[in-house]
Structure formats: C-alpha cells, structure tokens
C-alpha cells in the first residue's frame, strides 16, 4: 500500500519535469511546496498530503537536459523520501528513474509533451490487490508559475479510472 503511494509521488515528481523550456527551468535550483490529497490505492480512503521538493541540475552530464529532484511527501499516516533523476532526450521525450529511500525500489517512467499539459506514465502495469492498472499523471502549469498535478489509475480489465492524487504546487521563494 505504502509503496504505491510512494510510486504515485515518484510519478508526480516526473510530472514536475516540463519539456523543453519548462524542463530547462527545472534545472535551476528551486524548492516546491504542494498541498492536496492522496490515496494509498483506489479502494483506500483519501488523506490530506503535502510534498516538499528541491530540484537541482545533475552534477554529471549535460546539466541543461538532466536534473535531480530530492523530495519528501507526507500524510498523517506516514512520509517517504524520494530521489528522481530525469533526462530530456533529443526527440523531446522524457525518461526518469525514481528511487525510494526505504527499500531502494527503482521505477522507470516515461513522459511526453502536449500543447497545454504534460502526461507521464509508467510503461509497465502495476499490480494492486490482484488487479492490473495503468498509471497516468496529468500536469497543468498555471500562469502564475504554480502547477496542478493529478494521478489517475486505469484498471486494465474493467476500464474504470480512479484519481488517487491531486495536489497544487507553489514555488517556495
């Protein structure tokens, strides 16, 4: 249960990687604070959640097309630390590696850019309580520099969808 929550947070971290110009913006050192709700799984109840992240350019390689985000997210039930290393490829697509500190679980994620939003997804299906899900994250940038994030799980068999995470992020000066 907790690992899915971490995964969702990790996926969200990828969502904070905007393509092209926005991607470049994330290579500046910046702190973010997000407030919203999260669910541990589609059938679990909602809880208030907060995240705090710091994005910095990756020390090795080309700092303009890769960066690292270190973050911590919490709910009243618990918190987890996460590390994300993201990269923008020459074809515009994004890839990311997410590592959770607790058990060093590694998740590979992909992303693509649309005119007004970014969509990220986990290429592999996620198994939860015997059901397979496809994960999708939607990131909408606001004109004031903040952004909205939602994470949705699509059950592959029943084609039902569950939004298990929604959060509004502001840059911390």
């Amino acid at each position: 249960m907790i690992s899915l929550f971490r995964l969702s947070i990790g996926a969200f971290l990828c969502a904070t990687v905007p393509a092209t110009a926005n991607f470049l913006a994330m290579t500046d050192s910046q702190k973010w604070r997000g407030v919203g709700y999260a669910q541990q799984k589609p059938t679990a109840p909602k809880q208030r959640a907060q995240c705090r992240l710091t994005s910095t350019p990756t020390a090795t390689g080309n700092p303009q097309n890769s960066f690292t985000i270190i973050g911590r997210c919490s709910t009243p039930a618990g918190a987890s630390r996460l590390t994300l290393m993201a990269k923008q490829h020459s074809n515009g697509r994004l890839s990311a590696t997410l590592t959770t500190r607790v058990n060093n679980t590694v998740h590979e994620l992909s992303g693509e850019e649309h005119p007004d939003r970014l969509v990220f997804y986990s290429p592999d299906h996620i198994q939860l309580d015997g059901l397979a899900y496809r994960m999708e994250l939607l990131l909408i940038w606001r004109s004031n520099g903040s952004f909205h994030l939602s994470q949705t799980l699509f059950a592959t068999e029943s084609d039902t969808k569950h939004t298990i995470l929604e959060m509004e992020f502001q840059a911390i000066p």
Partner: protein
Amino acid sequence: MAISVTRLAFNDGLSTAFESDTETFRAFQNFSERFNSDGAEILVLFHTDDFAHPQKNTAVETFITEAQFIENVSAVLSPFSFQYTSPEGVEDFLFPYQRPAQSEMAQRLSHAQAQNPRLGTLISPDRQHLLVVISLTSYPETGPDQQVLLAQLNELATASTADLGINAALSGYPVLRTETVRLLFQEFIWLNVFGAVMGLTLAVLTLGNLGLGIITTLSSGLALLWAAGAMVFLGFQINVITVALPALILILSFAEAIHLVLEIRQQIADGRANPIHRAVRRIFPAAGLAAITTGIALGSLMLSPSALIYQLGFAGLFATLISTITIFTIVPLVFLTLGYFNRLSWVNTDAGLRMQRRFGLGGLIKIAQVAPVKTCASGLVIFATSLCIYAQLPYSYSLYEGLKPNAEPVATLRTIETQLSPIGTIKFEHPIEPIDQLKQATIALRGEFGAQNILGLYDVIEDDPLNWRQTLAALPLPLSQQLISHDATSTVITLVHPYQNSGATAAYLGEITPRIASMPQLAALGPPTGALVLSSLTSREMLSAFARCFLFAVLISGVLISWWLRNAIIGICVMIPNVLPITVVGSVMVFLDYGLSFSSGVALTIAFGIAIDDTVHVLNRLRIQAKETPHMAPHMILNAVRQTAPALMISSLILVMGLLGNFVSEMPPLAIFGGLSIGVFIMALLSDVLFLPALLICLTQILPAKFLRIGK
C-alpha cells in the same frame, strides 16, 4: 590549562549514571546492542475543549504532516493513523478527508474507542487531550542542535494550533534530557557567578579591606579556572550530579584564601619577620591536610559502582588538590610582590582586625569551657540518636528528579499518564519464530496485564502473521528496527507501566516476575530489561554504595589525622564531632520524608570532607602549641578553638552564603545539594566550637597523660 575550561561539556549524565559492572547493566547493554532504542521519541500533547471540532482536529493534522518535513523526524503516530469501520461497515480513516460536524465526529470517536481500546492511549475519552508520538531517526548529539529541533517542533505546533485555542506541550525523554542540559548550563553560570559575588562580598566584609577582598577573589577565581581546566583534561562533564562541584571548589578556595590572608595579616600585625613565609608555614599543614581530607571524601566516591559518580570522585579529588596548590601559590606570590615594593602597610587595618574579633564565637566556646562534661555527653547522645535515625534513611531515585515537578516536560508526562496511558516501558525479548509461540506469549501477556498495556510485533502482524517480514518492510525503518533485533531472530514485547520512581518500579518488577515465570506460554520470554528496569534495579545498588564511600572517607580521614597528630585515640575520637553533622542532617531528612538520592548521597559525602577541615584547623593550632607543651591540656584546647574560631566562622559563612544560590535553582538536586551542605556546615561549626573542645577536655580528664601527647 585554564583555557581548556571553554571545552567543558554539559551532559545530563543519564547514559553513565547506571553504567556499572552489574548483571542488570550487562543485560541492558546486550539488549541495547541487539535492538534500536525507542528513547528518541518526542511526545506532543495537545489540549483543547473538544478535538471532535473539525477545525481543531484539522489543525493538529496539519502539524503532523508538516512535522514530517523536519530533519530527523522519521515517523509519527497519532489518532490520525487509525482506520475506522462505521456501524454500516464503511471503512475510512478515523478522521476522514471530508470532516464531519463536531457531534458526528464525537460519536465516531466514541464508537472507535469501543472498537479499539488502544486509541485511548492517543486521545482521551473526553476528547480534550490528543497525543502525537514523533519518532526520530536519531536525536541530535549536541545541546544546541537538540534545542533547534525542539524549537522547530514547538513553533510548528504553536503556529498550527494556537489560534484555535489549542495548547501544545512537548515532552518525552529526549525533551527531559535537553531541558536538563539547558538548565545545567544556566545553573553552572549562576552558581559560579553567585559564589564569586558572595565570596568577594564576604571577603571584603570579613577582612574589612577591599584590596584583600580583591586578592582573595582573584586567587579563588584562578583556582577555579585551573581546577576546572584539570577536570576537563580528565574528561569531566557537567551533569546533574557534578554541576555543583565547580562552584563548591570556588567557595572552598575562598575559604582557604581567607584563612591564609587572615594569618598573613596577623603575622604582619604581630610585627613578625618574614610574615608571609611564616603564615604559609603555620597554615599550610592544616590547609594541606584539609585539602587531603576533602579530596579523600571526593575520592571515596570512586568506590561507587556508578561510572558517573566515579568520574565525579576522580575529577573532584584532583580539582580539590589543584585549587589548594593554586591558593598557596598565588596568595603568597601576590603578598611577596607587594612586600618587595614595600606596599604591605594597608593590609594591617584596625577595621579589619576589629571585624575579625566579632567572629570569635566566644559565647559558645565558653559553654564548652564551663560545662565540658554536659556538653560532651549531650553531643554523644545526639550523635547516637541521630546515627540510629540516619540508618533508617530510605533510598529514593526518579528519572525525573533533575527537573521540578511543575517543569513543563515533567507536568506534561504526568498529564499523559493520567489522561491517556502510562509511558514507562518494561521490555522483554522473545524469539520471533515459531510465530505461533509469539502469538501465544502475546495473548498470555495481554490477558495478564491488559491488551492496551502490551505492545509488540504481533500487534503489527496480527492480520497476516506468516508474512511478518513483508509487513515489517512497509514500516518506517526506525520503527521496524525497534521491533526486531538486528539479526531478525528476536522481537521485543513492551509492557507499559506507570512510572513513579525507581523504588516503585523495582517493587512492581518483584511482583510481576514470579507471575510471568509461572505461565508456560511465556517460557521463551526473556527477563525484564530496558532503561526503566536498569535505573530501577541498579539505583538501589548505586545508592547503597554511598554508605561504603562515606565509611571509607571517615576511616581514611581518621587514620590520616591520627598519623598527623601521632595519637590514634584522639585521631579516632575527633571523628565523632565530624560525623555528627552528617547523622543529624540525615535524621532531619528522615523526618522530612526525603530519601537518599544521588545528589543527597554526594552532598553528604562531600560535606563531610569539607566539614572536617574546621577540625583540622583547630587541631593544627593544638599541634603548634604542642611544640612547646607536648601534652594536650584544657587551656591549650580552648586557646586553639578561640584562635581559629574567627577563621572557622568566616569560612563557614562563606560556604553557607556561597551555596545559598542553590536554593533558587530550577533543578531540585541542586537545591537538595545546597540545603544539605549548608545544614552540614552549620552543624560542623557548632560541633567544632562546642562538642569538639568539650570532648577533648573530657579526654584530658579521662586519659592518662601518655595518651594525651600530640605531635612529634
């Protein structure tokens, strides 16, 4: 050496107080090496009229989520972690995302507490107290870092809740320890500044001369710096027990310096040649022996099985000797320098000599002169009676004794214990597998002590015991490491216990151990352990060792004085007036229902070593007179007491006034230390001008002349 004082470390001393070569400590050490400690948990107690109020419980929830962003916070346990199944069978968090109205939430909490009694340990049935347990990855090592962490939590709790009429208070062992260390630093400064100011004031008043007062103060200050520097060099740390020692060294230095200055002035007034050399020659044997007897009293503490008390004894022994050497080096050097420049005329003032005569205590000495037998008999009766009462002094120790009962962390702990749950913990080790054996043991313990009082691995894995490894892996690491041993073979079962003091816990352990031993389901359960068990079981042993330390100090001091006087009978007899102050003060403790604690044990032992100094000064005068008349006679005894009485009175006044600062201390052990020491010093002065001369006069009437010879 003095510069090293800046490296003086402050520590609450809890980690070394019970470090000893005892079976209980070895078992605790073995347990601590196998399991992560749960000592790094901060308790935040919130209080308001009703936590069913949606805005109020949301405010606490905000605190919980934000607290997890503070460095070192690893996990939080609160009622917000609990799930709830409604009577209709709907599962949700106890405090759902969409908060219900106050009345509905109140019903929900009431129903939840009936479902899960353990919830009652985190929120009170009247919904006015709510507890949040903050688990740390590690508690910062230095005091300032600890204070930063606590300030962050305090500020966050206040900012999240204060506007809604919610009161937040931090407690738990880390908070108690940090508060103790903060007070230690504050008290250390206060006691030394107060001692220096009182010493200077009294030196000026009693010597009747500002210049002499300044010389005395500077010499004493230097003695403290050198002694404290040596203590740092020897690895000494300031803790609850040792915080009074530097101030005591300062006050003792004042007393010694005044003795010496008085004698130098007397020699100058008498027009003696080489007055400074002569004064040092006359005073140093007594001052040296007095320093040795004080050092012996401190050194006797090295017989304690407690590492903390041992360190105090070791450092105190050296500090006393260094301070005496400093005084007998610096004061003569200052006067010799003044003499070299022919600047000693101001020393011998009429005002000063008149002031000195006011402290003669002639009335008391007269009683000993007029009625020596009655005075001596009264002293012996008081001694015998008080000795019998003193022997009844009970032992008393509490982990909270470093702070006042109304100090916020202590008061908060007491509120948690009365409103929510006991927070004292008794630990038992148990093998994890076979898992069914763990289940049977847990169920048996729940049946014996109540389900809400037993915490352990089985609570976490109850739904799926066979997959305990996966369940544990989902927990925050510090929490899972508290539950299972590093080699993952054993788990710890915790019995919560309302802690009052060590005596009560030791009695409780004595009661439950046979009950546990009689239950076959608990055959694999290890013996009780943990910090509470260690402190409760070993504190009695540590405290009983004070009697051994004290007897050793009396014995060695008696032998030394006998050797110094070359008279064993008088050497042994004069110990009675010196033990008397201790037995009398101990008896008063019995009547006031005080027990022998670490601070009182240390105070009585050290105070004996200091009180004996007065006797040594009286005997020194006798020795000086014995160079002309070797056999002790009543007129010699009375002369010796009359000659030393002003110095004894002044030094006692300095000791008493210098320790008065302890009474306004925020730390009860310091007030106890000060009160007991002052009591002993006053009794010692009375004993030395009344009982001692009367006893010696009686000896001159009883003993044959050959037993009255003193000195070479």
